[in-house]
């Protein structure tokens, strides 16, 4: 039955369309509401996908890095750094480890102390960057070995600040999806209301059609097609405007993108293209249900 209904929708029946009188104003309202919902859906999707992306980045990339700070007097610093690196070479789960150079550490500190800082004259801790392999390392075991051999080394595996961020991003992603579902449900409610109004307004037309031998599905089809096309075109318009708005968001550099990267990346740009079809499907189902309910009560 669904297949024939879809076929009828696709092929259209100009005559079936004509038997229901055109309705100017309410048609505009349905279009407008569908467009608005699609526009909001684009942002809800952007929010979900962007926060999902952040959660993944924070979860995966930061999980595989760790840092060792070597805090020691200037004359012992190089020796302790060497010792720590030797330990790391024999630690299971460490893919690579290297000490940052003076220039790199200066670049890291430049935002706070300015570029003029003579870093080699100060007892700044030496940083060692560790990249783990896929198996991951045992941070507790590494800490124990470091404590025994390199007293000035402190391991920081980023867990402390990463976990709440990942949690927050996941929660944002969930909120985005809930919004998308609510928007879809609102759209269904709105189309149902509009379809009910149209069916009541055309009660006489329906009575005439029943009298001359029209089947329920023929009558329903005229309404279903109308509302499905309205939802489809309205939401396509809203979706395009929403995507343009996202495109025109001020672009942010890498540092800022960390917080303001609302938008789509890569194949995610294709996801909003589904919105009009989802809206059309929702309208198709909602109008069909409304029409079947109304027609059943008529002679």
């Amino acid at each position, binding site marked *: 039955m669904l297949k024939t209904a879809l076929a009828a929708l696709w092929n259209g029946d100009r*005559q079936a369309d004509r038997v229901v*009188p055109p309705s100017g104003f309410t048609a505009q309202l349905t279009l407008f509401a569908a467009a608005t919902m699609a526009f909001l859906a684009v942002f809800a999707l952007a929010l979900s996908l962007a926060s999902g992306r952040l959660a993944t980045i924070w979860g995966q990339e930061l999980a595989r890095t760790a840092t060792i700070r070597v805090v020691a007097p200037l004359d012992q610093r190089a020796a302790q750094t060497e010792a720590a690196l030797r330990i790391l070479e024999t630690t299971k789960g460490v893919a690579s480890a290297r000490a940052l150079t003076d220039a790199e550490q200066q670049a890291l500190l430049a935002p706070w102390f300015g570029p003029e800082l003579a870093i080699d004259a100060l007892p700044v801790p030496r940083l060692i960057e560790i990249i783990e392999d896929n198996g991951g390392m045992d941070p507790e075991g590494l800490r124990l070995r470091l404590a025994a051999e390199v007293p000035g080394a402190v391991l920081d595996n980023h867990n402390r600040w990463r976990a709440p961020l990942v949690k927050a991003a996941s929660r944002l992603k969930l909120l985005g999806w809930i919004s998308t579902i609510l928007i879809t449900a609102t759209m269904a409610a709105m189309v149902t209301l509009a379809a009910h109004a149209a069916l009541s307004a055309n009660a006489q037309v329906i009575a*005439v059609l029943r009298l*001359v*031998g029209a089947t329920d599905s023929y009558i329903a089809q005229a309404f279903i097609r109308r509302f499905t096309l309205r939802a489809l075109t309205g939401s396509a318009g809203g979706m395009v405007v929403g995507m343009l708005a996202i495109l025109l968001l001020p672009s942010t550099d890498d540092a800022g993108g960390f917080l303001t990267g609302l938008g789509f990346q890569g194949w995610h740009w294709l996801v909003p293209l589904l919105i009009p079809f989802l809206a059309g499907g929702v309208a198709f189902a909602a109008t069909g249900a409304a029409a079947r309910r109304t027609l059943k009560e008529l002679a």
Partner: protein
Amino acid sequence: MIEFENVAYSYGGGELLSDISVKLAPGSFHFLTGPSGSGKTTLMKLCYGALLPTAGHVTLFGSDVRSLDRDDIAMVRRRVGVVHQDCQFLNHLPVAENIGLPLTVSGRHAETGGDDLLELLSWVGLSNRADALPPELSGGERQRAALARAVIMSPDVVLADEPTGNVDWEMSQRLLKLLVELNRMGKTVLIATHDLGLIRATKAQVQARVLRIANRRIQLAGADL
């Protein structure tokens, strides 16, 4: 074609019709008469499945009406042409399209372009009103358009409820002549009317039986009418 067997109908309160047994044989011509409010329209509606009997059995084209689903009822209505007392049309479509509507809704829209529709229009004398909208028609024109719509599918049965209710004598004669012609073509005709003059005038042209509703029951009226 249409058979009533001990049919009763009540609108909640008392019974409007009770113990009705009638058989409309193919090719027969019946009048249905009785005072206003006696149940003529209700009996008509029972004939095309718009109402279900509260007791007894109505058989339409060999099937009990209670066993028919909504699509079956739609199919029955393609074989029964109905002219209502107050004929309703699709007011946004011209007369010609309204008359062709039964073809359109049964997936035979292509046939509305043929000569049949034009012939039918001239038969009911509406050729020059084909492009008018229904609200622009006079009472008589509406009745004739409704009759044309009722017969375009070449139905087996034509039911007309007070078809001459709001037209003058001359027009009612024309409408009746059309119905008599249909009967001669083999259609079963049932006309509800309280106009006894009309019945007398028809009896001269065709062998018509008169069913009278009195005291909620059907009586076969005698020849003295």
